[in-house]
């Protein structure tokens, strides 16, 4: 009888063990702190729509006229920030973008429906952080085209004759195909010159000796 009892326990223990493992699994299942709230297709559409890109003109307008409802966030490191930044900006370096106090800040901004404008030294520097925040569901985040470099005038080329604003970095700076054509001709010329000198030098020497002999 004792034996039977023992077996009873074994089956139940095994079955309960299975359940306990699964329950433990659920208890320890760490809900990911961050989840992409925007589906990937929708996020791509948002990026392609360009509607979250803020131009330098608009940014200057906001700063000079002190327009409400906007908050500039400088995502460069504190050292760069200290050297110079947009007057009303606060500093959240991009490494600490998702630190809890910064997440709380972004939550607050989105609650107050304040538009956050991210900027780095150039557009590329803030691009990753901007996409990250957008895909995490912060829809009130925009990115400053050209970044602080253009804003401060450091990377502004006064002599540029181009009609296209210089902060649109994705515009080609050269006509690649034409330039390549030109350069390949040019370089072949260089090459042939090299060939020349190689070929000519021995000839020259020979001639020299001949001439010398002649003299």
């Amino acid at each position, binding site marked *: 009888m004792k034996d039977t009892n023992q077996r009873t326990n074994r089956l139940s223990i095994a079955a309960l063990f299975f359940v306990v493992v*699964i329950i433990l699994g659920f208890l320890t299942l760490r809900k990911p702190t961050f989840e992409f709230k925007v589906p*990937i297709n929708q996020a791509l559409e948002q990026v392609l729509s360009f509607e979250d890109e803020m131009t330098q003109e608009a940014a200057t307008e906001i700063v000079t006229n002190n327009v409400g409802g906007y908050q500039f966030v400088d995502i460069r490191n504190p050292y760069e920030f200290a050297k110079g930044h947009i007057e009303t900006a606060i500093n959240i370096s991009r490494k600490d*973008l*998702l630190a809890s106090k910064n997440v709380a800040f972004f939550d607050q901004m989105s609650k107050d429906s304040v538009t956050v404008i991210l900027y780095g030294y150039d557009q590329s520097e803030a691009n990753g952080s901007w996409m990250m925040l957008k895909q995490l569901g912060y829809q009130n985040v925009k990115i400053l085209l050209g970044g602080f470099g253009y804003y401060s005038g450091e990377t502004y080329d006064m002599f540029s004759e181009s009609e296209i604003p210089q902060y649109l*970095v994705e515009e*080609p700076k050269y006509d*690649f195909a034409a330039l390549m054509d030109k350069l390949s001709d*040019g370089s072949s010329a260089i090459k042939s010159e090299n060939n020349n000198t190689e070929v*000519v030098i021995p000839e020259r020497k020979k001639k020299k000796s001949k001439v010398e002999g002649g003299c």
Partner: protein
Amino acid sequence: MNLKYSLLAAILVLLGFVLLILPAKEQLSETNPEVLQYELGEVTHFISVDKVAERIINQDPTLLLIDVRMADDYLKYSLPGAENIPLEDILNPDWADLLGQIDRDIVFYSNADVYAEQAWMFARRKGYKNLFVMQGGLNNWFGTIIKPIEPTETSSAKDIETYRFRKAASIYFCGGQAVVSEANPQDAIVITRKKKKSKVEGGC
């Protein structure tokens, strides 16, 4: 019925039922945002144009260049060996085989690095690995590799070394078409040779 069997049956039914009513997990295959944030924060995903040039010149088979610009731009000019996936098409499942090659380093590039980084972000979120962005894109490529800026005399030895590499790379990348137009240079040689001859003669 025996209690232990009822218990087992109840457990199995319960577990099966819980499984049935668990909310479906959709984004299972997507990369965790924290992983992406780490990579963005540490900037591990950028690769310099010099590195890319070096790998192209060495004909590194593990390098796969992806041009994320429009097909038109790609057809006009693209880096040697690059494949074209326009940014808006990056999520197309047709590219799964191309992007899923784990033994290759996949380098995205566009005119600058903004679109390329966006493509990187989406592909990375989808779970592809070994993805990189060419720093500065084609504008940087042309500004450094194709038209390298000559270092000043005060430049460090390293800068001069870089310049030499870029100059050599420039000749490599531009020389590809020079081979085709072989006839003209030969003519040029003849002409220059003549000139030189006359010079020598004049010298005497």
